C-alpha cells in the first residue's frame, strides 16, 4: 500500500438504474439490496476492490492503482 492511494472506478452495482449513466466502469443492475450487496462482495473479493455505498441504491467499486 502506498502512502496515498489513487483509486480508479472499477465497477458500479445498483438497484436504481436511473441513477447511473454509462462511463468507463461496467454497471451491474441488481433487483434488490441483498442481491446488490452479494454481487458487490463477490466482485470485491475477486478483484481486490473496495466498495463504497453512495446511499442512493448504488454501490461503487474502486481499485487502488498502486496495489499489487
Amino acid at each position: 500500500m502506498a502512502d496515498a492511494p489513487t483509486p480508479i472506478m472499477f465497477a458500479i452495482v445498483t438497484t436504481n438504474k436511473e441513477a447511473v449513466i454509462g462511463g468507463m466502469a461496467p454497471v451491474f443492475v441488481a433487483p434488490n439490496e441483498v442481491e446488490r450487496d452479494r454481487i458487490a462482495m463477490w466482485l470485491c473479493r475477486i478483484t481486490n476492490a473496495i466498495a463504497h455505498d453512495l446511499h442512493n441504491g448504488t454501490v461503487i467499486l474502486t481499485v487502488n492503482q498502486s496495489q499489487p
Partner: protein
Amino acid sequence: MSGSTPPINWDPMIIGFVAGFLSRILYLRSGKSHYPGYPSGYISQVALAIIAALIGSSIIVSLLGKEFTAATFLTLAATQFRDVRTTERQTLEKEESLILVGRGAGYIEGIAITYEARNFLAMLVALASSLVAEWNDIAGIIAALVFIIVGEKFMSGPRIGQLIDVKPADLRFEKGTLLYVGPVMMMEVGLPDSRERYRSQGLGVILTPKNPRGEAALWNISQRQAIAHEAAVAVGVQKDVGYPEQGTLCRMDMPKGTGSAGLTIIPVERDIDKLIRAIEQTPVLESGKWSRMVNTKNRKEDAHG
C-alpha cells in the same frame, strides 16, 4: 612495519575499534524492529560495523606511522558506505509489495538514512576515541564511553509517544456505512460483511498531538503510514489479498481539521495495550523530526482561557 619507523602503538587502534564496533552494535539493538530477516540482516550489519570501526580506528595510527597511502585508501573505503543506504532502501522497497500494511516511502527513507548514518557514526566514534587514546589510553577509554553515550542520545530520535497521546476509542458506524473512531470519520465501508467484522472485531485508537512537533508529525502522511505499519506488525491484521477495506487505516479528523487522527485495525491479537505501546514506540520520521505546527483552531480556545 618498516625498520625506520618506531614500533606501532596498537592501543589507540584497539580502543577505537572496540568503541566504534560497540556503538554500532548498540544501535542495532534499537533498530531491530525495522530490520527484515534478523539473522542474515545482523550478519551483514555486524560485518559492516567491523569494517567501519576498523577504518575509523586505523586512520590516526596510519597517519602517525607516516603511511599516507594507507590513510588515503582508508578514506576511499569509507566512501563505500554510501551504498548502505541504497541497499537498505532497495531491500525494503522490494518487501513493500509483499507486506499487507506497507511502511511507506517516508519510513523506508528514514530507516535507510539512519542505517547509513550509524555506520558513519561508528567510524567517527572509532576515529575520535583512537585520537584521544593516542594521547592517553585511560583517557581514550573514558572518551570512547562518552562518545558512545552521546552518539546514542544524538541518534535515537523521538518516539511518537513523546509527541502524541494515544487513547483507545470506540468504533461505530454513522449513517449506516461511515466508520467513525470517536469523533474521527475514517472511511466509507460499503459491504455489510466488512461492517460486521469491524463491529465485532475491530479496534480503534485516537491520536492527539501533545505539542507543536506532534501536530506537525501527525499531519505527515508518511508518518501515519509508519504508525499504521508498526500497529499492524505488533497486533497483526486480519487482512488478505482481496480484503483491501479491512486493512489498517490512520486518518486525520478531516473536515474539521482539529489535528487529531484516528486509527482502525482488525487485529489478530485483540490487545489494545499492546497496540497503544506499539504506536507510542513508532519512531518520528526524519523528514518531520524538527518541524513544528500550532493548530490555530485549538489555539483559539486556549486564548479564551
